[in-house]
């Protein structure tokens, strides 16, 4: 039984874990990481990265279909879904290898196997070969991530009822698909499958799709999905999912739907196998490990970061937490993660990106707000690209000009949003944005115009 002694043991090498490990190493700590799958976690292997590869394929298919608009004649083209998945796997493999490289570069020990946190300072690793290794560490970081949840009584068999984990590996696509859950994962897969010709129905229990986003974003995205023949049903409660018909029969309150497969995208829950929170005395709150602003759990020397530490379940939030945990372990005084300033990005077409409060939430505070909105139809760059769906919406405090929230639906929304992320970090107000010259022609000009709009000064509208 091999024994390792290290400063820091990190269980899980997703974006939280690997970033934490690297930052620890940078700060001069010895680090051992444990991974039971492939380095990079869900993000690199089964989530963010491979789905972005698939979405890129979907976009290219879409462009081919639109080629005549640009005067390009494509007599016929074949979009092989299996090839899209294979490409996606290559992309994921490459990124995962990148993580392994970074581990080597930073002299981080990677142990393959399932880590178990026995007690503070002691992690055992059950390796694939049956052996067990132990890690003694000054600090242990739980970065075990999350796994897809299902609805009560419905089993994800990855055959008829698949999760994103299954969908991203599956090299064939169903002729029809019911997506349960219209959050980021649901609408992204709906986008991919629909682009390849699958008849997609999206069911959402809440009254609107992408329900955490601004209402106007949800409404317009729903219209755009409808235009693409994606069926969207909101305020729908699924009562049962059973095999039958074309594959699966989904019953809702008052309706019976049929499809070849069901994609369960109702959210993700903390993955806590290997961490007996109760025995360790680690506090769990709403199903997630509770961590302090320094990312330490209720037990000294045990840290938790990323999805396992609670929402938002986003890779970039996990990375930020990983850095905080590393610096806390190294005795630094890290700046805590600003959870009010985490961008939210969905990569469907058109993309959705947001930061801060929705208009409705901003109004809930009772303060006077001002809203500026600029449609991409009025953006020269968007018209030139031929991507004019969507808008930039800026919600600000009327008195101070504080940027309370920004909501973008449109081309490259996920890239445009960062202007406002930086602005909010620096506590810029509307005025600082409007006094910043935005290059022309760019999609970001829409941000400027929406900001001007919030001050009643929009030029191009």
């Amino acid at each position, binding site marked *: 039984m091999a024994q390792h002694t290290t400063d820091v043991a990190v269980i899980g090498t997703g974006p939280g874990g690997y970033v934490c490990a690297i930052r620890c190493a940078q700060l001069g700590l010895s680090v051992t990481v444990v991974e039971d799958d492939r380095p990079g976690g869900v993000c690199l292997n089964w989530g963010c990265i491979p789905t972005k590869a698939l979405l890129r394929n979907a976009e290219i298919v879409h462009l081919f279909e639109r080629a005549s608009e640009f005067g390009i004649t494509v007599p016929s083209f074949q979009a092989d879904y299996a090839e899209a998945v294979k490409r996606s796997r290559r992309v994921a493999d490459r990124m995962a290898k990148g993580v392994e490289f970074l581990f080597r570069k930073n002299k981080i020990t990677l142990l393959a196997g399932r880590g178990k946190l026995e007690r503070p300072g002691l992690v055992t690793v059950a390796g694939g070969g049956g052996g067990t290794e132990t890690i003694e560490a000054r600090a242990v970081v739980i970065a075990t991530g999350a796994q897809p949840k299902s609805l009560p009584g419905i089993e994800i068999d990855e055959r008829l009822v698949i999760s994103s984990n299954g969908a991203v590996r599956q090299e064939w696509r169903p002729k029809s698909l019911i997506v349960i859950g219209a959050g980021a994962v649901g609408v992204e897969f709906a986008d991919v499958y629909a682009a390849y010709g699958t008849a997609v129905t999206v069911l959402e229990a809440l009254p609107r799709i992408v329900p955490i986003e601004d209402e106007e974003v949800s409404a317009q995205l729903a219209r755009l999905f409808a235009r693409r023949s994606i069926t969207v049903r909101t305020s729908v409660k699924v009562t049962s999912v059973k095999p039958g018909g074309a594959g699966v029969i989904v019953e809702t309150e008052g309706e019976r739907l049929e499809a070849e497969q069901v994609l369960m995208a109702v959210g993700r829950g903390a993955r806590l196998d290997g961490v007996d929170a109760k025995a360790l005395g680690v506090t769990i709150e709403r199903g997630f490990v509770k961590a302090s602003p320094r990312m330490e759990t209720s037990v000294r020397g045990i840290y938790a970061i990323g999805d396992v530490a609670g929402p938002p379940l986003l890779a970039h939030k996990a990375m930020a937490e990983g850095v905080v945990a590393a610096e806390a372990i190294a005795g630094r005084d890290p700046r805590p993660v600003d959870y009010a300033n985490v961008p939210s990005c969905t990569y469907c077409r058109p993309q959705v990106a947001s930061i801060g409060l929705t208009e409705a939430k901003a109004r809930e505070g009772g303060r006077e707000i001002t809203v500026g909105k600029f449609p991409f139809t009025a953006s020269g760059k968007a018209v030139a690209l031929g991507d004019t769906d969507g808008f930039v919406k800026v919600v600000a405090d009327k008195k*101070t*000009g504080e940027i309370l929230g920004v909501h973008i639906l449109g081309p490259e929304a996920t890239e445009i949003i960062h202007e406002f992320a930086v602005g909010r970090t*620096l*506590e*810029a*107000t509307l*005025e600082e944005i409007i006094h910043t010259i935005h290059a022309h022609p760019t999609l970001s000009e829409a941000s400027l115009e929406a900001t001007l709009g919030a001050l009643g000064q929009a030029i191009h509208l």
Partner: protein
Amino acid sequence: MAVTKVVMPKLSEAMESGKIIKWLKKEGDRVAGGDILAEVETDKADVEMEAFGAGVLRKILVPAGSQAPVGALIAVIAETDEDIASVVASAPPPTAPAQAQPPAPKPAAMTSDRPAVPPQPRSEDFTTREKSPAAPGAAGRSDAPDAPRTAVAPGPARTSAPPAGAAAPAGGATSAAAATPAGARAAAGAPTAGPESSAARGPAAAGPTGRVKASPLAKKVAAQSGVDLHVVHGSGPGGRIVRRDVEAAVTTAAAAPAPAVSGAEYEDRPLTPMRAAIAKRMPLAKAPVPHFYLTTEIAMDRAWELREELNALEGQPKISVTDMLVRACAMTLLQHPGVNASFQGDSIRVYHRAHIGLAVALDDGLITPVLRDAQDKSLARIATEGRDLVERARARKLRANELSGATFSISNLGMFDVAEFSAIINPPEGAIIAVGAVRRVPVVDDQGLGVGRRMSMTLSCDHRVMDGAMGARFLQDLKRLLEAPLRLLL
């Protein structure tokens, strides 16, 4: 036409350096005497700096945002054909904006350890907007280079102090902090190396007159909630003040006396420039000046009635008790010049004019604008000018000459329902009067027991200038005047 050197004016007694907020003229502009050249920031006020020489503003040596010591060459006015190279070459480099001036002795008569250094415009080429106190006649926008010097009526040489009235009585500091607190935080942050480097990366709120490092949002919230960013501790990167810091400051202020920081027993708040000035000036005002105090009670019934009658008149400014006091003190001071006097070491300077300093409370300190030549002004005019001074004092918009030159001061805490108190003399003045509230009290007179309006006044006197009886006689006449107030209208 000679070359005119524009130097950093000494705008208040304790001022050792000033910051150019902005230049209102640019190089190449033609300026006439009296044109406003620039706005200068001192720790108590933003002041307009006037050109004294005429010609072309040939060279600006201290850019906006930079600091320069008093007396330093900051610009040159000359005709276009004049050679100014040698003048410009003699100028020292300006100090970086955020730089707090060290409390080092300054050249010439500007030492700060003398409490009563004249605030008089020192240079030949600059004067403040209005002229020196005692010489309204010289107030013309003369191009004559030495007008200001002749303008100071009682003719104080630079070594002997003329009236300096900016000091606040009742614990008043003068208009400037000689030893600016170098940014309490700046000291905590990077007490490194030479002045240049510390200026360059002085953390947080920088020097007291320097740039405050704060986010745009923090600045707006501070402006809206009336928080002085100089006193806010910055928790952002490098000590930058962010919104939550300002909000915490607001909460702290609102939640007092409950300590805002949970668990903390105390907090150390950095001195504001004004507080630092007060802290520095007060011992100099109190310790070397042997104070004695005379208290009397005034029957304010008639003055009160008169005031109500006056205030019932249409189209007249509202008269306050303080306005009546200013008028009464000015009139009485002319009769008792020994009280309107200043100790000069080997002589006593007796003033023939009454420049009355009015202590004005600010949120974080106090300031004493000067109402000049009160002896020549009607109640209505005193009311109008007084209100203007007080409002601008609160807005920190006083001009330099309004901050200095008082011969006597009044501190009225009646509005806080203070019955009576004693004030600290503001050197070089010889006396200050501290006024309590006008209260309705039972009084006994020939008709028996009645209700009357009474007001306590305490005169603080410099024993080096006067003795008890002299002060008492002044007080007695002041009391008579207020009790038979019709003469205030004459």
